[in-house]
């Protein structure tokens, strides 16, 4: 533990948290609308990372693009393909079970998750594990050191870009949910599924939009994380981030959109803090202990309201 590096660690934590928050949003939105924990969400994130890799290294000749254009193309492809994947999962696996007991849908979600993890082995290159090369990331070149107000810390351009792109997406989502008619319909469905349907809301359309938006955000998260960190990819890439983001969503109050963002950032910062004090081995354990503790005191999560749960 070194007090001088605390500010740097908080910045690391916020960046990690921004990715957790992006994934947690998908969990929380789907839960809000369908009361379903979409366990396949982490695998959508994994596919997003792979799409970014294939876009940058296989499908397109990266030397022909301006780096910024290539990055946008990667982001666009990841989001679009993940959105399509998400909505397909909903159509094929969840919609036929809409009136089935909730446990059946939950088990189906786990099944879809396993299908994507194991089935991905047939489609994606996993050995040797591919990673997105550094040359596609132009932000890498800019690092800010010894900033006037912040003192002795280093912030990389990639880190900053990732953080702000995440924030922009969160603001766009907030605008969609609170300021548009689709958003109003979404909130109505979340509040009471059947009544919303009776009031003339096209429930299936709203569910599809929820999956499109949530999966698109997960795709963006996968693309940014794989590009900024240069991690080797395999089909289990989404497993741990998926679980962490789920915990973040529960921590913030599942079904609550600002709660997911708060939970994501809290998880990211908590994790780096544990490493900071020198217990790197316990960072996952502590995340879950924090969750248990929060749930003991506030069973609905930090921002969750009491009593929305339907019978």
């Amino acid at each position, binding site marked *: 533990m*070194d007090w001088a590096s605390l500010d*740097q*660690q908080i910045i690391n934590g916020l960046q990690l948290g921004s990715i957790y928050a992006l994934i947690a949003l998908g969990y929380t939105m789907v839960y809000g609308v369908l009361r379903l924990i979409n366990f396949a969400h982490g695998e959508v994130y994994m596919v997003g990372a792979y799409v970014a890799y294939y876009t940058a290294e296989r499908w397109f000749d990266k030397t022909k693009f301006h780096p910024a254009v290539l990055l946008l193309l990667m982001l666009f492809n990841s989001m679009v393909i993940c959105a399509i994947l998400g909505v397909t999962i909903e159509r094929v696996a969840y919609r036929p079970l809409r009136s089935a007991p909730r446990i059946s849908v939950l088990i189906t979600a786990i099944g879809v998750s396993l299908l994507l993890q194991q089935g991905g082995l047939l489609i994606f290159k996993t050995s*040797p*594990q591919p990673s997105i090369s550094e040359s596609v990331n132009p932000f890498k070149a800019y690092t800010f050191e010894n900033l006037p107000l912040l003192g002795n810390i280093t912030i990389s351009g990639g880190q900053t870009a990732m953080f702000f792109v995440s924030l922009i997406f969160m603001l766009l989502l907030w605008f969609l949910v609170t300021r548009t008619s689709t958003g109003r319909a979404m909130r109505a469905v979340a509040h009471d599924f059947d009544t919303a349907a009776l009031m003339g809301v096209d429930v299936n359309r709203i569910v599809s939009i929820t999956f499109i938006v949530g999966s698109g955000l997960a795709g963006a998260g996968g693309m940014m994380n794989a590009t900024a960190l240069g991690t080797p990819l395999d089909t289990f890439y989404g497993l741990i981030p998926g679980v962490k983001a789920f915990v973040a969503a529960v921590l913030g109050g599942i079904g609550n959109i600002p709660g997911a963002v708060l939970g994501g950032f809290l998880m990211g910062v908590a994790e*780096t803090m544990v490493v900071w004090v020198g217990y790197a081995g316990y960072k996952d354990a502590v995340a879950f202990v924090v969750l248990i503790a929060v749930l003991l005191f506030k069973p609905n999560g930090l921002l969750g309201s009491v009593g929305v749960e339907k019978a």
Partner: protein
Amino acid sequence: MNRLSRKHWIFTLSGLLSIFVLFAWLGGCKTEESATSGTTATVRPESTGPGNKVEGDTIPIGIIASLSGSEKPWGEESVRGAQLAVDEFNAEGGLNGKQVVLLVEDTGGQPEQGKSATERLITEKKVIAVLGEVASGVTAPSAQVAQEKGVPIVSIGSTRVDITDIGNMVFRVCYTDDFQGAMMAKFAYEDLGLRRVAILTDRKLPYSVGLSEMFREYFTRLGGKIVTEEFYEKGQTDFKAQLTNIKAANPDGLFCSGYFTEIGPIARQRKEVGLNVPMFGGDGWDSRELLQAGGEGIIGGYYSNHYSNLEDRLEVKAFVSKYKAKYGEEPANAMSALGYDAAGVVLDALKRAKSLDSRALRDAIAETKNFPGVSGTITIGPDGNAQKPGLVLEAKLVNGKPAWVPFKRYEWFDPGLKKKA
């Protein structure tokens, strides 16, 4: 829902506390175990197994390798190298007209699968020797099987110290981690002039834990200081928190003992927290992929290896040209050369063996002296380990492209760490 009794609270809190204590206790146990695992070197147990005899017109030799899974780049190369040596042996007429057949089994990089692959080779295919594996975690259970059945096993790339302690049937053609750790410490202290080094260890990988330990011991013995040691786990993607801690300790070098899959992102991310000190590690770095995955951060990095395609030795040049002629490309990593040498040692022993069975072959392997291997001259010591030189490679830009270039060769020495046979 929120109204929980006080008793309930005490209950849950004490429950949480006991979980913590349990975790801490388990964590403590683990590190102790790994710390003592290197010290158990005494006399190697004799095998009581019946062994196999050559009965047909061909001499069967088995090889186990990870041909699937994340360590595939290593497994594939080891088989290619061994096959090359067998082909040469057969082209020269084999042994008294008998040809050698190389039987390949996939381990998938999994200990259990490696064990059953070895069993299949020995009991069904009746091989008189087994080559492999690369990963120590797979070699250990496989060697146990070979030892029980009385068939010699020659590991290709397992550097973990205690592998050959399993018994007198177990050998290897690579150096061990006590030598490797000492060599890197010597390199850091003498050649780079480092005095304050930080260590980054993959705590889920026994290889990494062991190598870090050996490095720490020899480096402090030389007079250097380990300023901090940080840990991560295989599969982790964000290392910035650990790297920030390391930067805060103000080291002049960073020793990373893990596998190449995590070294790539570490090399990239260290630039993001501004940790600009030389970075170096062990043979777990050995891969072509690392140069791409590590980006700019890997340039100026060093690791210890068994062999390099660019080495200026006659054996290496001959091997590379033979390899190119057969497979149409250059060897991707050192495992092809080690596979070639492992097969070479066994085939050389086959010629000297008094009879064509696994016990006579074992005795001949144990007597190997100054075998001219591609990865260096190999003498098998009384402990079953190869006494041979090591090599440090440096990541450099060659014609604008990153490549691993030989930096310095270190002759074999006994570091006298832990293992006192």
